[in-house]
């Protein structure tokens, strides 16, 4: 589904990714671990299409509807419509824009793209209500402005709610576990696991092995200095947890 080849990418003039290769198939969950500054968040921003991050060379091939596109050539919204989703490490607050309007607009934009009929507000509220129940989110959030006055944990839950609404083919979860207490993490992981199918794929970026107890990865990668230096099964995460990164870096 996703094939990143020899990717070099920069932000504000400094090169962060230096020859990254990653291949993800439908049905797989890949975990990416790595020390601070290794390029984890840059990778997520590049996949989502953040305008301040530039691809210097290499390609990000993505297979959608039977054809392969270079994601880098698409606007962020076009990527989203093709089923690419980023759960933000730091979700953005948007004063004055109510959650209900935001989520419905997003859902209907994707519907229009696929030629599917849009959902009217009443049906959408019901649809949303079901999704929120899974994440144990109160209905009162529907009327609040997007992420405004949400606690850290609520913001992360809201990311997974958006993922549940948009039902992406490829989801990148950027440190979704940071700032979550153990109960919230179980709820968030439960929500993510519900969305896991044979047809979609996930990339879970995390500092800690902890989250991977709840979202079991098929493959674990260690990212360092802009490239993947080690890949393995889920036991690699445990090894990193126990020994740190030093043994891999030298």
């Amino acid at each position, binding site marked *: 589904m996703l094939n990143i080849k020899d990717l070099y990418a920069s932000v504000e003039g400094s090169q962060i990714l230096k020859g990254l290769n990653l291949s993800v198939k439908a049905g797989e969950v890949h975990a990416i671990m790595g020390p601070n500054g290794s390029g984890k968040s840059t990778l997520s921003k590049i996949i*989502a*299409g*953040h*305008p*301040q991050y530039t691809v210097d060379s290499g390609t990000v091939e993505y297979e959608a509807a039977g054809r392969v596109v270079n994601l880098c050539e698409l*606007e*962020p*919204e076009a*990527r*989203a*419509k093709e089923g690419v*989703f*980023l759960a*933000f490490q730091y*979700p*953005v607050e*948007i*004063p*004055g*824009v109510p959650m209900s*309007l*935001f989520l419905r*607009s*997003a859902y209907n*934009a*994707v519907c229009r*793209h696929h030629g599917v009929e849009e959902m009217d507000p009443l049906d959408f509220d019901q649809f949303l209500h079901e999704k929120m129940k899974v994440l144990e989110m109160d209905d009162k959030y529907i009327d609040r*402005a997007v992420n405004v006055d949400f606690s850290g944990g609520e913001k992360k839950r809201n990311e997974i709610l*958006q993922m549940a609404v*948009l039902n992406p083919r490829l989801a990148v979860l950027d440190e979704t576990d940071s700032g979550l207490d153990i109960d919230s993490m179980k709820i968030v992981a439960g929500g993510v696991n519900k969305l896991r199918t044979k047809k979609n794929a996930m990339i879970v970026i995390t500092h800690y092995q902890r989250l991977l107890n709840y979202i079991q990865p098929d493959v674990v990668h260690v990212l360092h200095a802009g490239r993947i230096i080690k890949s393995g099964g889920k036991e690699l995460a445990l090894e990193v947890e126990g020994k740190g990164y030093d043994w891999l870096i030298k």
Partner: protein
Amino acid sequence: MKTVFRGTQLYDGFKDSGVDISALADMPWPTFKSEEWKYTNLTGLGEQYFTPVSRFEGALPDRVKDLFMPGAVNFVFVNGLFLEHLSETGKIDPRWQVKTGLDAMGFAKSSVSDLAKNETPVFRALNEAFVKDAIFIGVPQGVKGCAPFHIIHLLDGAVGRQAIFPRTFLKIGRGAGAIFWETVASFDEGEYFHCPVVEGLIEEDASLEYIQAQGHSAQAFHIGSVRIRQERNSRLDSFVLTTGARIFRNNVNVVLEGEGAEARVNGLHALKGDRHADSHTCVDHAAPNTRSDQLYKCILQDKAHSVFNGKIFVRREAQLTNSYQLNKNLILSRECRVDTKPQLEINADDVKCTHGATIGQLNDEELFYLQTRGISKQEARQMLVRGFVDDVLNKIVNPDLRAVIGKMAAF
């Protein structure tokens, strides 16, 4: 030696009115050297020729009916003069006291007038000298839950270069509550000078929601004042929307005179073209345990110019004051201009006061976030603009009024 002030050609048109203007002519005409007028240039106004309105002739556009608000008591003034046949006098709650014309002037000489001391004397004097019609509305003790009272001020520039000096006085009796709103509308791009004064007294335990929707011609000059005095435990929710004018200046002066009084002073400038709008607010905490909240938002495109000057006074006796003020500006073009000046003057030691001002463009991170959810850049921009505006519109308590104001503020 007598100083000759620039800009007093304005008085030429007032000479034949029969009103003695010699005192006026001696008052200084404000220039940019005055702190109060630093960012709003009155030279243009001073060079205009206007005549004080005396009567209204001619046909009213049918469109005035479109401004009527269902469920409210609608009153119509044209160029500052009351039009009884268009006004819904029969819908007034019989307990309310409503007077117009010279009758109302008697009531309008109020205890609130002295709040004008913060204002520029010449405009106060002009209104006092040339006011031709007025309205007094008294809500008696304990009366609440009545329909909103809506005054439509239609400004007909086609009549030709009129100077208009309306006067409104509101008295909300003890424990009473009322919703009062004024719509200012101009159906053409005519030139006129609008200089209204609104005074309100909110007695003990009473509440007032006061809304102004100022929709002027692009050629208009508007210099207006709102003065409100609040007694113990009273509450004010005020909101001023303006789409600007050639020169638009609005002063909102509130004094919290009784313990426990609360004021919410909010506003929105929605400016396009080369329109200008200047809001000066002044909240005076004169008693302990008083509270004020101010949010003024300004959205600008093209070559528009917005000015905000917000003052908070906390007097020595006003301990335990809570005061909050924020001015947020969203600029959508490179050529627009914003001047903002929050001011605090605190003389008590046990108070909580914050203020701030921001000026920014649409936030790139917010745009990106919306785009990553499949929302196009254009739709995302509209959503953020709408969100910026709605954030302050949500301060309007009455949902029907909020919807009407929202339409007027469409950007």
